């Protein structure tokens, strides 16, 4: 059983951290919360392993832990400050573009940010994202669509997409 947890931990810990960092915009708080969530998963591993998505369980637990009031009191801040908190990355390899994109994600409304984080960075299917956040899968799609639309609008002028992509995007009414 412990071996299974070890495999799960090794395989998913980074993806979970990235999702929670993106969802919360708080690197230090996310690390605490993710470590706490994996610890709780370890304690209840027999039950968590039977969960339809242990990764979703851990992310939900991490987000709940993060939302506990004392973490929020310490770290609640105007949205504009979030990107600075979210970066730089652990290994110091961030480019300006990385920081810019993280700032754009941090500026999204909280629900869009959470959906984007869980769907893209944790690679959870829409119904699992919905289960984590307590919303319908259809609502997940709506939030994701709006998040991507907002990012596209802000990234298009500066991102080095190929001319074909940009042309297709424009043709598609983006």
């Amino acid at each position, binding site marked *: 059983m412990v071996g299974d947890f070890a495999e799960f931990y090794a395989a998913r810990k980074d993806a979970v951290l990235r999702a929670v960092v*993106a969802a*919360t915009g708080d690197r230090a708080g996310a690390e605490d919360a993710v470590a706490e969530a994996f610890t709780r998963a*370890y304690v209840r591993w027999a039950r968590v392993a039977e969960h339809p998505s242990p990764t979703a369980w851990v992310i939900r637990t991490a987000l709940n832990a993060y939302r506990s009031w004392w973490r929020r009191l310490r770290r*609640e801040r105007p949205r504009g400050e979030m990107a600075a908190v979210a970066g730089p990355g652990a290994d110091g390899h961030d480019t300006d573009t990385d920081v810019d994109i993280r700032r754009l994600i941090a500026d999204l409304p*909280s629900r869009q940010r959470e959906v984007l984080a869980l769907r893209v960075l944790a690679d959870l299917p829409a119904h699992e994202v919905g289960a984590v956040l307590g919303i319908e899968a259809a609502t997940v799609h709506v939030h994701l669509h709006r998040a*991507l639309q907002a990012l596209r609008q802000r990234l298009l002028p500066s991102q080095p997409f190929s001319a074909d992509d940009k042309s297709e995007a424009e043709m*598609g009414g983006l």
Partner: protein
Amino acid sequence: MTGTGTNEDVFDEELFEIIRGTYRDMQLRVPLAHIQRRHHRVARWALAPGRIRLVFAAALAVMAVAVGSWLLIGRTAGGSGQVPASPLPSTSEPAQGKPARPTSSSTTDEGRCADYVRAELDATQRGGEAIPPLRLTLAEGQTRLLIFADDGGAITCWLFGDTFAVQGSPTAVNATAYPIGQLSYSSEDSGQDWGGVAFGRVPPGTTNVTISFPSGPDVAATVNGEWFAYFAPPGADSNRLADATKVTATTSNGDVSQLIQHG
């Protein structure tokens, strides 16, 4: 229309990859062994039924010793015979530095919570600090929530049947979280699927407090003097607290509102 969808899909995938690339260097630098060691601390707050029985039996044994001592002291010294109100020492102190498991001989939620909070403060080298006054007690189903707070911070004690969880000031840095006479707001999740709560302080004379959300109706909080709280049952309603946008206190001088920022 189909062509547009395909272009968007392709473009979305490219955007996904860009986003993933942005976070590619983020790694959780917590070794597995650390997680496995940490579980002893978490286990304190999530006692399994067998452990509850063990703790209960141990607490009974200590109570028997305490009562015996009380009888002996009362007879020899002619004392008042009152059992000390301080929490009982941990009866199952594990070896090798594992933290003490809080126990309580109290039969009331307030007494139990006071014991648990005291143990938590002691465990964090803040044993000399006074427990804030009990401001609000909420109950729904098996869940009971007691909020101890003053202008320097708050500690919540969640009880669900015989299981408990304590959150708050022992690890917080919130020196002026609830200033006197001002509207303040905080919220937390029990972390145990028992629900969530929003609470804070209000100006004197406040009669009603409402919490607003981007969608759905406002909710009314319970007001007790200068404090308010709203209990959100587990599930969607609890998760909704993370999206609350505004808290409004209705006073004799008009409404006072505060926008809520989420980290």
